[in-house]
């Protein structure tokens, strides 16, 4: 479907930027018809992906960069979150809910992304970084009928 808009964000890997990232992507997504629930779900997915980059990819180093690309078609939001961090050795393991390298993390990041987005994909090269690509169909899903019909 025709691309309506696209954007790119790049920011430091600090916790304060998690809110910046999700609010920015939600504001961008709201250019097309989204329900409030769509926007809440997109915010959670973006937060989880960016936090994964900061905590796991960069191991909390504050001087690295996280990149987000987002694109809109009439009814779909596509989001890509990228880092140049340490990468994920075993992606299948990382996608399991109980998998986390930190005792207090629940390993729920990918579970939320999976629940809230229609599709998502994780690609990673150990030592070089991780790319999470996700998309979601948004809007009420009700076909709009023109007055002529």
């Amino acid at each position: 479907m025709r691309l309506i808009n696209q954007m790119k964000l790049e920011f430091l890997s600090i916790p304060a930027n998690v809110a910046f990232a999700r609010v920015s992507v939600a504001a961008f997504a709201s250019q097309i018809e989204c329900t409030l629930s769509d926007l809440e779900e997109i915010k959670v997915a973006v937060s989880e992906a960016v936090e994964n980059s900061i905590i796991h990819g960069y191991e909390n180093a504050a001087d690295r960069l996280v990149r987000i690309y987002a694109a809109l078609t009439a009814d779909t939001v596509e989001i890509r979150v990228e880092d140049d961090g340490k990468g994920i050795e075993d992606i299948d393991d990382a996608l399991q809910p109980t998998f986390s390298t930190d005792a207090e993390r629940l390993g729920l990041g990918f579970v939320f992304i999976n629940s809230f987005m229609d599709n998502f994909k994780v690609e990673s090269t150990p030592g070089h970084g991780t790319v999470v690509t996700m998309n979601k169909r948004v809007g009420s899903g009700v076909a709009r009928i023109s007055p002529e019909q």
Partner: protein
Amino acid sequence: MELEQIQDTLIARLSGDLDLGVADHLRNTLDEALDNQPVRNIILNLAGASFIDSSVLGVLLGRYKRVSRIGGRVCIVEPQPQVRRILELSGLLRIMDEFPGEAAALENIG
């Protein structure tokens, strides 16, 4: 975050967006309160919380484990719908009890 202690119950009123940006502060503040006072139960009033993600769920789970070791409970009060959905999906609502208000939670803990 606002804290209040009533007997051996700590009431924590959380507000705003609960994400990685506040997770450390939240963990330290709650642990300090648990270290300095005899706390058995925690009531988390989430009425003012507009957003929550897994980084803060981890903090809440950690404090749950801490009080449940001494037989205490963690109660959730008035979560907004979008926050409640995350709590439900994470499984935390299965181990914590939900109440419509602080008074109801306090009474139940009694």
